[in-house]
């Protein structure tokens, strides 16, 4: 029987690989991702499940899923010209198909994705967590970018349905879960200031508040507060909190063992482990 062994939340800035290379191992980006990698190594998972949002690279608006699950033998990326190495990674197709079928039986309307690459939202975290790509990765796509977004409650429920599906999986399997994304980030929208950068962090307080609720394990409050309106006031990319909320649905209400804020960037790194 498969079991959930850890949860991780982290950002996926496309500039992070180059920044970490410039700054070296003592830079904050490298250190924070390394802290996550250390926890990941300690729990020795057999599979990584990652909640991710596609930035119009894998999908486009001709057919943009609200929820989608990747069911293939492998995937590769990044497919969006992010300056970083290109990777190929195995996908646990059977487990992915099982999870999708179980979630559909519970009333989740999930697109089937049998041939796909992934963008920086998957590959930036993996680049830091396991550049050898030794662990198969199961991507679950959530629309965090093109409103109307799924509600936070719906994403939490999706996570819970996936937890139940994993518990039903007959083989012994250690599953770690990642939520990928930022809490406060505006790219190209009217909140950006004059200057030389088309992005900004409109609401560092919201970023800290999200982490406070995570630390205090006040998940229901977080889900209630994380309306689309609230998230998008923190920036047009603020919906990526939904990837973290789906993660919470899978791992349940637990206190993080580590939480590393970068509120100037509207983001954080967090790890959940138990026993």
């Amino acid at each position, binding site marked *: 029987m498969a079991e959930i062994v850890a949860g991780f939340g982290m950002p996926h800035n496309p500039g992070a690989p180059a920044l970490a290379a410039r700054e070296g191992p003592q830079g904050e980006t490298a250190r924070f991702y390394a802290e996550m990698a250390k926890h990941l190594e300690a729990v020795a998972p057999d599979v990584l499940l990652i909640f991710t949002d596609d*930035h*119009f*690279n894998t999908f*486009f*608006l*001709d057919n943009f899923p609200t929820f989608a699950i990747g069911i293939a033998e492998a995937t590769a990326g990044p497919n*969006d*010209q992010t300056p970083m190495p290109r990777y190929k990674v195995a996908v646990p197709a059977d487990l992915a198909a099982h999870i999708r079928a179980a979630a559909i039986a519970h009333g989740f309307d999930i697109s089937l994705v049998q041939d796909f690459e992934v963008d920086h939202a998957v590959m930036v975290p993996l680049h830091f967590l396991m550049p050898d790509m030794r662990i198969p990765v199961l991507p679950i796509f959530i629309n965090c*970018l*093109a409103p109307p977004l799924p509600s936070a409650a719906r994403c939490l429920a999706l996570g819970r349905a996936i937890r139940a599906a994993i518990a039903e999986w007959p083989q012994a399997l250690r599953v770690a879960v990642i939520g990928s994304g930022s809490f406060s980030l*505006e*790219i*190209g*929208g*009217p*909140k*950006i*200031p*004059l*200057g*030389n*950068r*088309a*992005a900004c962090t409109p609401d560092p307080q919201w970023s800290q508040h999200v982490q406070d609720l995570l630390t205090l394990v006040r998940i229901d409050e977080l889900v209630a507060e994380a309306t689309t*309106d609230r998230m*998008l*006031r923190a920036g*047009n*990319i603020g919906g990526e909190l939904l990837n973290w909320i789906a993660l919470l649905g899978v791992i349940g209400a637990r206190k993080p063992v580590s939480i590393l804020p970068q509120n100037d960037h509207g983001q954080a790194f967090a790890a959940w482990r138990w026993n």
Partner: protein
Amino acid sequence: MSVYTVNKICRDALHDLAFREAVRRDPAGTIAGRDLSPDERRALLAGDVAWLYEHGCHPFLMSYLTRWELFGLKVPTYCERIQKAHDSRDD
């Protein structure tokens, strides 16, 4: 369809290098065959990102244009113009 087409042009600028180069050399000619309304065509060729934003173009996709300064959009120009867009999040 047509705001869709502006979004698609932004995305193609990222994914299709030949298209990107063509837009850089000849913006109007390169998008001549695209299904755009006259207003949309004018706004895109003028780099009027406030108008495009207000009509539903995705800012994440529009911001690509500044990477290669397409349609006259250097970053400072983009920032200056997008700030003037009506932001429905403030309503």
